[in-house]
């Protein structure tokens, strides 16, 4: 269980690091380009995540695409699959759009005059970013982290395909209890626990951000 939370947190922050520049870039474009890039980001989200995860399996496998390419270059096959890194990669891949969307909507609404004002008042571009843009985008960051963390902590397919027996997550256990172990009582208890964890995390994140409630937009 601690492992679920740990992996989900890492994934959420990796998503933030990748997603923030992406959202920033999209927000800096013209409205028309914004709309099309946004579509491109949304599109993978609508596809079956089962097959996308399976596609990663074929990429990362010991005899998979990446390793056979490396083999042609004369490099020994790398252990790319069945470890924590692969699970994090799978989670980041599947839930990255959930991070980009709220970040984008916050960055897009930001008043550009604030940035100009900050620059006029003698801020370097870096200072403009750390003193104006970053604090203003906190609601987006928080809701993005929540939206990645919540599905990540409960995932059961990604960890099973990309992970090892050592990376059994909470979702896996719940699924097993219901579908193969026929012990719905334990499964229900775990689900309730999971829900409490998630609600607690959302509560914590609300504390840090203040006005979050109306921020969950699609």
């Amino acid at each position, binding site marked *: 269980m601690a492992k679920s939370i740990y992996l989900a947190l890492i994934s959420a922050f990796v998503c933030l690091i*990748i997603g923030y520049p992406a959202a920033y870039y999209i927000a800096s474009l013209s409205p028309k380009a914004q709309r099309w890039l946004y579509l491109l980001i949304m*599109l993978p989200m609508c596809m079956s995540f089962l097959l996308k995860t399976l596609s990663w399996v074929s990429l990362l496998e010991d*005899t998979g695409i990446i390793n056979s390419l490396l083999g042609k270059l004369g490099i020994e096959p790398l252990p790319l699959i069945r470890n924590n890194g692969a699970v994090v990669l799978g989670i980041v891949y599947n839930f*990255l759009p959930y991070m980009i969307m709220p970040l984008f909507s916050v960055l897009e609404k930001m008043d550009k005059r604030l940035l100009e004002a900050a620059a006029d008042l003698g801020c370097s571009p870096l200072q403009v970013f750390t003193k104006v843009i970053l604090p203003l985008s906190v609601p987006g960051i928080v809701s993005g982290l929540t939206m990645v963390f919540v599905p990540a902590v409960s995932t059961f397919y990604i960890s099973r395909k990309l992970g090892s027996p050592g990376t059994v997550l909470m979702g896996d256990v719940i699924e097993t209890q*219901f579908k193969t172990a026929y012990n719905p009582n334990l499964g229900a208890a775990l689900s309730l626990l*999971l*829900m409490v964890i998630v609600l607690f995390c959302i509560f914590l994140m609300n504390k840090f951000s203040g006005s979050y*409630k109306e921020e969950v937009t*699609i």
Partner: protein
Amino acid sequence: MILVLIFLYLPIVILIVASFNTSADIARLSGFTFAQYTALFQDSALLPLLGNSLIVAALSSLIATVMGTMAALGIYSMRGKLRSLALTVTNIPLTNPDIVTGVSLALVFVFVGRALRINNVLGFTTLLIAHISFNLSYVILAVLPKLTQMDKNLRDAALDLGCTPLQAFFKVIFFEILPGIISGALLSFAMSLDDFVISYFVYGPSFVTLPVEIYNYTKKPLHPKIYALFTVLFAAILLIMVLMNILEALDAKRTRNIRKTGNSERGVKFEKIL
């Protein structure tokens, strides 16, 4: 940005390439073929499942759109504590992990089924109810912003001119919030079509949807016709998304024009009325 897009599309491209590949192994390219597509369309088991998925998606998004629009109207007229309570309740299915939603719905269905003494309660009806319940939130969240953007005077004007509240809705409000309703319906259709986790817990052997069957397929070595199926679905969803995008673009253009001229068609109508 380009790196992010490559990252996002790499697996999809691989699956699409694999659908045209003659070799069953994704990692080995050997030749170009449409054989997987013919195999897919000759498959008597997979196509009805796609039909099942489409039926559930269409029905659930339709019902959820009607119910969600009504709910959004209700929330719109609420004030204060009640409103924020209703919004929080609406957000719960969105913030709750899918697996928890699925498990709890399954437990409710089994419980009610036992109380009514129905055996094997899980089936088409439970699947439909489950899909409606998670689609509702998406519809409400798509319609509500359109309602708040709407000019409040429009409804009052319609009522002043002798419309009953019901007429005021169908003749005025409905057209104002139509973009929200359409995008809510499309979104919930796509969500329902693609949903696996919740369906997985509430489906019965009598009625199986495509994502669930794909999951059952992925337990065994995968037949390449699944890749062909993925490509077809990808094209379909791409189409829906582009359609949605164009609708939104038209909507944005319309509001921009209204703002630009300041004296839109609507404004003119109002002046005439006044």
